[in-house]
């Protein structure tokens, strides 16, 4: 099996440290003073050269945030975060706004190269990668480069950093920003509204099928820096786009905060497929360091017959608090959530989805695969609700948990709520362990303990991996195996 072989080779390549993205890049940076205040919000907005309305929007969010309290219902534990002990803006100093790749600091290009993310269009065109993928690369607080912009422009697709969109397409941003995740939605989302620094913006015009995969790679490099990215994707009537985000961070002893907001909007007959491979630094084996990943992702199926599909592979972060959701507003709209959440070491995951059925004949499907190893805790938390008018709402949920070892935990917390008698919700859940018998069987056939675990886990997550674009499925498969390195034996 090719993937297994690759996995094994990849694992062999790793020396002491299994997190291969833990390097940091030395760069001169432009940083905001430490801490959080109205002045910092103004500082960020000024750095971005934003219009007045954007600053006001941020300040309003900041003031509301001050009145809010941190949510504590998730099954995760961490010391109280001192929001004044962090930097809210960090940008590589050289060429703050590069126009072409040649202007980007070679050290940054080198960092992305190490991450295996192709930014040079020529390389991609020369066949380094099999299919074309346009990339927006976000380094700490700024987008450093977006590839294939010209080609996308020909199709009428806008793909740029959110900072650029605020300046170049204010009418679209004003119309949609905060329309899916309201400013006061939750503590972290509100904080994001105040201090978000960059992210991606995608606009697919009516009837256009985006000619290539779009992807954004987020990289936290600076110490003590929070990353607050903001992504907004709008798919007009009858359009389609597939979007992928990837995330990594260097290995640091302190915890770093990542609080992103992603908003998706689909109009009639439109479809957005959103895939995430999240591999933020998870902390060391004793739980020191790692990213706090507090993310709000929501899609609004605003039009009839529209569809939003979330696929996530979550292997990183010390704490994950994330519930990519769908508001099924349009009649016959469809929401999907496919998730693989892997936790090892001391990682804590509380993740799931919300499917809010508002329109008639709306359908949703949830497939969640949680894998816990080490001393980690892995919770699936999902809400499915049918509004009074959501006649014939349908949901199917399948939640499977796999335990590796004796010290980890898996938890499933489904909330089902129906106000319409015609709604049909189905929920299936299983919890299993990789049994010693299965392991012995595989090893009797010649597989090593690592190979056997990789094979069994790959089988367990197969249904979800199939949902990912091909190249990413292979990457994700490797990532899962690496994340579980050291969990057996």
């Amino acid at each position, binding site marked *: *099996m090719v993937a*297994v*072989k690759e996995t094994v080779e990849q694992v062999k390549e790793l020396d002491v440290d299994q997190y291969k993205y833990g390097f940091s890049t030395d760069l001169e940076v432009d940083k905001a003073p430490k801490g959080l205040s109205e002045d910092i919000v103004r500082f960020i907005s000024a750095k971005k050269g934003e219009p007045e309305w954007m600053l006001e929007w941020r300040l309003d969010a900041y003031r509301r945030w001050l009145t809010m309290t941190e949510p504590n219902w998730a099954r995760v534990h961490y010391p109280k975060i001192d929001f004044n002990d962090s930097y809210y803006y960090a940008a590589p100093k050289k060429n703050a706004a590069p126009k072409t790749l040649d202007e980007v600091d070679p050290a940054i290009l080198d960092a992305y190269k190490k991450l295996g993310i192709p930014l040079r269009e020529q390389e991609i065109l020369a066949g380094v990668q099999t299919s074309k993928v346009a990339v927006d690369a976000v380094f700490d607080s700024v987008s450093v480069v977006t590839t294939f912009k010209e080609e996308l422009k020909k199709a009428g697709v806008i793909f740029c950093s959110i900072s650029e969109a605020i300046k170049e397409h204010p009418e679209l941003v004003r119309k949609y920003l905060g329309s899916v995740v309201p400013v006061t939605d939750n503590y972290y989302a509100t904080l994001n509204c105040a201090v978000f620094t960059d992210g991606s913006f995608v606009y697919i015009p009516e009837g256009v099928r985006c000619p290539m995969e779009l992807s954004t790679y987020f990289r936290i490099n600076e110490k003590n820096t929070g990353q607050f990215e903001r992504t907004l994707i709008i798919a007009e009537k009858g359009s389609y786009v597939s979007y992928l985000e990837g995330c990594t961070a260097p290995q640091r002893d302190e915890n770093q905060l990542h609080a992103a907001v992603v908003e998706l909007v689909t109009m009639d007959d439109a479809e957005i497929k959103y895939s995430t491979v999240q591999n933020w630094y998870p902390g060391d084996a004793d739980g020191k360091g790692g990213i706090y990943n507090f993310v709000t992702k929501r899609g609004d199926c605003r039009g009839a017959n529209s569809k939003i599909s979330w696929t996530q592979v979550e292997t990183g972060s010390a704490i994950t608090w994330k519930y990519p959701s769908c508001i099924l507003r349009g009649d016959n709209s469809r929401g999907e959530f496919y998730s693989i959440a892997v936790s090892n070491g001391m990682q804590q995951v509380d993740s799931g989805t919300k499917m809010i059925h508002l329109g008639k004949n709306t359908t949703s499907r949830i497939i969640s695969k949680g894998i816990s190893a080490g001393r980690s805790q892995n919770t699936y938390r999902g809400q499915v609700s049918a509004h009074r008018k959501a006649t014939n709402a349908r949901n199917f949920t399948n939640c499977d948990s796999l335990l590796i070892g004796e010290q980890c935990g898996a938890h499933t917390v489904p909330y089902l709520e129906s106000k319409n008698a015609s709604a049909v919700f189905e929920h299936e859940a299983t919890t299993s362990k990789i*049994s*010693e*018998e*299965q392991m*012995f*069987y*595989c*090893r*009797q*056939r*010649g*597989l*090593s*303990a690592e*190979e056997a675990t990789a*094979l*069994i886990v*790959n*089988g*367990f*997550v*197969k*249904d979800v991996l199939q949902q990912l674009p091909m190249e990413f499925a292979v990457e994700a498969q490797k990532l899962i195996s690496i994340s579980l390195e050291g969990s057996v034996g």
Partner: protein
Amino acid sequence: MLEIRNLHVAIEDGSKKILNGLDLTIHNGEVAAIMGPNGSGKSTLSYVIAGKPDYEILDGEILLDGENLLEMEPDARAAAGVFLAFQYPLEIPGVATMTFLKAAMNAQSRARGEGELKTPDFMRRVKLGAEKLGIPQDMLRRGLNVGFSGGEKKRMEILQMALLEPSIAILDETDSGLDIDALKIVSEGVNALRSADRSFLVITHYQRLLNYIVPDTVHVMSNGRIVKTGGKELALELEANGYADYVSNVAA
């Protein structure tokens, strides 16, 4: 050649001793049958040879062509030529049988320092082997052993044995749960693999299987030891008289 000398084995937590000084030699090309009542330690013997971790080896040695198996991990024993056809083959959901077969074959050839199989060669070998055992192609695409009937699982074990080409194949009650047709197919599969450089250890309760897989030697096991060794006629004698003589021998 497989040589087992003075083997004493207990369950890992030390609660119960199962093998009590077992001696057994199987020469290359030999088909040896082990028969014995329930609880005599037959399955334990097969697991200990293959390296299942739940046992504590108190004394003795197991040599395969002079190499000490007891010092090797289960996967290393497999690569060295040990194959165990399980009494209850395990299910691996989501892993296509084909994928599993390839992973196993490649892992073993890598361990032996040989190159991996080319995909077309692999496909050809699997297809040919599956046909001989009456395994339909669609079964190879399904999750390993998931939803397979008892007979299908046993046939799959024999297919794996054929593909992995072991030097010692242990069949742990392969006949249990098989109807007469399946028994014939499985036995033919085994017989086709008999060769001068491959030996078999056939564990069974019943003489019936030995009508189809005719052994060179028959060993009676009781209370964790071989208590009687003879030719294939010994199986018939056991069928007629039962194990009572041997069990009481030990008790006395």
